[in-house]
């Protein structure tokens, strides 16, 4: 009897090429950040020169600090609000305005950033709000809480509801049942949601450009204005540092979901 081979040569080739396409450009960038030569394309030996340049660049450091503060605060607020939204959508059964609610939560996931950025800026101008740290934080929270909601909701959806019901049959009130049973089970998804919100905020250029004020540029805004002027080795070093930071975040996120993988299927970041 003929056995159909599941994995053809074509499958392996397309996988290998696809992954190479995804990773090679980033690897090249990291490699060139250690290049001693001022010319980006000529290899002049290993050096940490461009990292030293970065740490001497005050404007860049300030922008990085601003980005970190925005990312941590917006990710934290977004995780809180996004988790609440996910609980309401997956456990709240029917309630008034539910369709509008879910619509508002799913639309920003794909909404072009220029629209979100422009509309928020017009609101801030109308409210006469001073633009800077808080306006960017609010803008990023609005975007990233939707991602948190989706990640947590997908975890809640795969959870066995009889666990909560058992807790309540044993005398817990709903809030207690949620705290004692549901929350620990969805904790990995909440952690993954926070990490996703953090990296999205750290990455955002368009929305931050619209909602920030003069003198408070975020790191992507600084990088963008430098990149427009051309490739500079210092940018390679900054980008490598950002990639390293995100790598640490991913490792923590995956450890967090591994810790609880015995409790059911692991939470995928998306």
């Amino acid at each position, binding site marked *: 009897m*003929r056995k159909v081979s599941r*994995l053809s040569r*074509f*499958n*392996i080739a*397309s*996988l290998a090429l696809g992954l190479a396409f*995804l990773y090679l*450009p980033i690897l090249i960038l990291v490699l*060139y950040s250690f290049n001693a030569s001022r010319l*980006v*394309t000529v290899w002049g030996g290993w050096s940490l020169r461009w990292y030293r340049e970065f740490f001497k660049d005050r404007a860049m450091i300030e922008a990085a600090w601003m980005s970190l503060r925005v990312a941590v605060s917006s990710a934290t607020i977004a995780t*809180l*609000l996004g988790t609440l*939204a996910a*609980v*309401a*959508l*997956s*456990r*709240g*059964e029917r309630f008034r305005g539910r369709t509008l609610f*879910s*619509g*508002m*939560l799913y639309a920003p996931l*794909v*909404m*072009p950033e*220029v*629209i979100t950025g422009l*509309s*928020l800026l*017009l*609101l801030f101008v*109308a409210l006469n709000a001073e633009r800077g740290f808080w306006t960017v934080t609010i803008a990023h929270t*609005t975007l990233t*809480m939707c991602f948190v909601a*989706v990640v947590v909701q997908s975890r809640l*959806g795969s959870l066995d*509801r009889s666990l*909560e*019901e058992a807790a*309540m*049959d044993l005398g817990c009130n*709903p*809030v207690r049942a*949620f705290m004692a049973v549901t929350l620990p089970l969805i904790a990995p998804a909440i952690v993954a949601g926070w990490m*996703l919100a953090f*990296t999205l905020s750290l*990455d955002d250029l*368009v929305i931050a450009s619209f909602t920030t004020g003069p003198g408070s540029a975020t790191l992507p805004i600084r*990088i*963008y204005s430098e*990149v427009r002027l051309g*490739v500079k080795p210092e940018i390679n070093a900054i*980008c490598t540092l950002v990639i390293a930071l*995100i790598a640490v975040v*991913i490792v923590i996120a995956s450890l967090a979901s591994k810790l609880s993988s015995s409790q059911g299927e692991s939470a*995928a970041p998306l």
Partner: protein
Amino acid sequence: MSSRRIFARPARFAAIAPYVWMALFFLVPFAFVLKISLSQTAIAQPPYEPVFDLTAGWEALKAALAALSIDNFRLLGSDDIYVFAYVRSLTVAVTATALLLLFGYPIAYGMARLPKRWQAVAMVLVIVPFWTSFLIRIYAWINILQHDGLLNQILLALHLVSQPVVWLSTDTAMYIGIVYSYLPFMILPLYATLAKMEPALEEAASDLGAPPWHVFWLVTFPLSLPGVGAGVLLCFIPIVGEFVIPDLLAGSNALMIGQTLWLEFFTNKDWPVASAAAIVLLVVLLLPLLLYERLQKRQLEQRR
């Protein structure tokens, strides 16, 4: 009363805070975009004539409503720059989405056919680049594609070309950038449907004598259509409004609508026209947005 229904009541209360937040920072701002798109441009700060002032009472409101103008929208319809920008955005988005499907499908298919434990590894490998910065990934390509960049050096060393090829500021570079940035968004929904597919169906078709190509077209592909739909929408909608990639990689002779909006806003300081452009963009995307939302909702809520 079942415990499920008792549980639902406090769960509904959880909606209040995020509901208020999204209404205030997502819904209300659109009202402002609409309002400003209907006002006159002014050289002032903020650079538009306020259309109405709610504190001024009903009479003032009526006067203001009468003063609303659709001039900005007329400008968008009559000025070639904007019409071209919309056409170009849609063309770029259709082409790029087709390319993404073409390249993403084989990768997702390969993933779905891996042994189970390798599938998880492959999925992480596809997701990780999505976590690294968008801007950095575009910048990485500028490194490679520039005049004396790696790609030209390789091509020259292999004697495939005798002169460095101009890659930057071309549509080719832009498409490379878009495909590179959006590939995970295409692969993941495709993989999700392909992995759930019953392998026995393909085996049955080939046992009955169908050549591999027929098996794919008549069995695999039709069954993966929900994933194709999700991937296409997930890529198409944001690409139409894309700003960063065309700005950094494509030439400046043909702008996409995201770029014109940005230009009107930041360079020309014409907020009303920028707002009108955003409204038109939103209208163009309304149908795909609604389709996407339904899909997302069904996917997340059918598991309950």
